[in-house]
């Protein structure tokens, strides 16, 4: 019932957007070539769905996304856990991370090509870079946020270092890490598309660039719509996962 309600609101939103869009076209007197009408975009969307172009590009984009994102998450969480255990090393790594993080992943492309060649790898590496730093930082900050009593408890019980890391620190910080993953999924997706717009020959970003090159703005808008929709789905799935983990691991407890 809640879902139905949400869908209802989404439907209202949809109608409002379409109407506003059409009104803008009428009032602004924009030619179809500059601002396609909702109907044109709809037929554009239908055409790329029917001829399979969309499915193909979506598949490629999602493959790149998961390959880059999952490997980044794995590397960043493990590294984050280990680094946060040794304060000195982290204080050395931190400034490096801080300077690398604000650099747009695409800025590295000449070097990505040098080491990773062409094809899918550059896009995957771009996603990797986009996801790696936020997850690393959120892992380290999650570990630092752990309630000190857990650590005191472990000391008191004389737990071994490995038990401490895998049975206390990792699960205790996981809810925060998960919320870091959630944030990173959005950024990574945006960068995938941006990355595909620059260098790739396939994927949703390329679909947009290609349509734009052919001056088919209706397909550009259709592409944007599907990018938004897929991004939303990715985000919601991770949100659900996060909630589920939160429940599983007793978030909202008084301790």
């Amino acid at each position: 019932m809640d879902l139905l309600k949400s869908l209802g609101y989404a439907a209202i939103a949809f109608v409002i957007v379409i109407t506003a869009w059409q009104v803008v076209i009428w009032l602004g007197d924009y030619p179809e070539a500059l601002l396609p009408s909702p109907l044109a975009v709809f037929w554009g969307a239908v055409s790329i769905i029917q001829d399979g172009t969309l499915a193909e590009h979506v598949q490629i984009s999602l493959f790149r996304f998961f390959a880059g994102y999952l490997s980044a998450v794995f590397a960043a969480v493990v590294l984050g856990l280990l680094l946060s255990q040794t304060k000195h090393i982290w204080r050395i790594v931190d400034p490096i991370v801080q300077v690398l993080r604000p650099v747009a992943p695409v800025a590295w492309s000449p070097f990505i090509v040098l080491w990773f060649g062409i094809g899918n790898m550059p896009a995957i590496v771009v996603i990797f870079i986009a996801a790696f730093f936020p997850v690393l930082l959120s892992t380290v900050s999650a570990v630092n946020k752990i309630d000190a009593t857990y650590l005191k408890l472990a000391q008191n019980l004389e737990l071994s270092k490995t038990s401490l890391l895998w049975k206390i620190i990792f699960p205790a910080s996981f809810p925060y890490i998960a919320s870091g993953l959630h944030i990173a999924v959005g950024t990574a997706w945006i960068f995938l598309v941006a990355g595909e717009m620059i260098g790739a020959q396939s994927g949703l970003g390329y679909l947009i660039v290609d349509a734009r090159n052919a001056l088919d703005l209706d397909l550009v808008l259709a592409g944007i719509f599907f990018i938004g929709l897929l991004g939303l789905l990715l985000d919601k799935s991770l949100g659900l996962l996060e909630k589920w983990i939160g429940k599983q691991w007793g978030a909202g407890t008084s301790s």
Partner: protein
Amino acid sequence: AEPGGGESESGDQVIQIGHLPITHAAPAYFLDHYQDELLDDVELELIQFNSWIELMDALNTGRIDGASVLFELAMKARSQGIEIETTALGHREGNPIIVDPEVDSVEDLKGETVAIPHTLSAHNLLLEEMLTGAGLDYEDVEISEMPPPEMPAALSEGRVASYVVAEPFGALGVENEIGKVMHQSSEFCPDNCLCCAFVLREDTMEAFPEATDELMEGYLKASERAGDGSEESMQVHADYLPVDEGALELSLDWISYDDLDIREDEYAYLREKLVEMELVDGPPSFDALVNRTHVQGGDD
């Protein structure tokens, strides 16, 4: 959008012309450089773009009054209802096919990636001619579209095995020993591979007919200076395209600015080709797009 860039401080009509940093836009550069001499009541403002598509966005939306642009792109835009006309060519020839030094024949390109500036370009048509001429299919190579300035880098990084593009990027690749020339455009479509056109928006032309006439007159005069090969001309080229001397000379060897008229048979060939390659559904007729009054008026 309002046509024209408004009036300059001195009351002259400002006309904004978009271009890419390529030798093919040289008449526009020369008009800009000599505008005190060649233009009276018009002020030319050049606006440089990095890629064709950004330029087209600005042209289509009326943010600029005209541009030196790929002929095929202008056709597509016109077919979509954008009201522009081509008033002259930008140049003739000057489109080499640059390949990696390892590549010796067209057959070697099979399965490799080739960069072109745009599917709607003479370079794409050229590539198709070359491939089919060598008994290959167009699908036998990977086509990669990228902004011209990016191509030498892409070739040196091994992202592409070959590129076909406007000058001076071909010459740059040769000068820097990144690649070599395999063929020249003249080998495939002698004198009728229309490449770059000078286009103007119809709203500008209608609003400022005198200014348009003056601009075009100046443009044609400027094109003569661009191609005269003098020391001074070389210097102007070098001012607008800061590439080293060798590359520039090489470029200018390949290119000519003599005859900028657009002839019907050349145009028809282009139309056929675009339809054949399924690049444009209903290309505009010759009369709808091409405006020869200025070129021919100059001849009269």
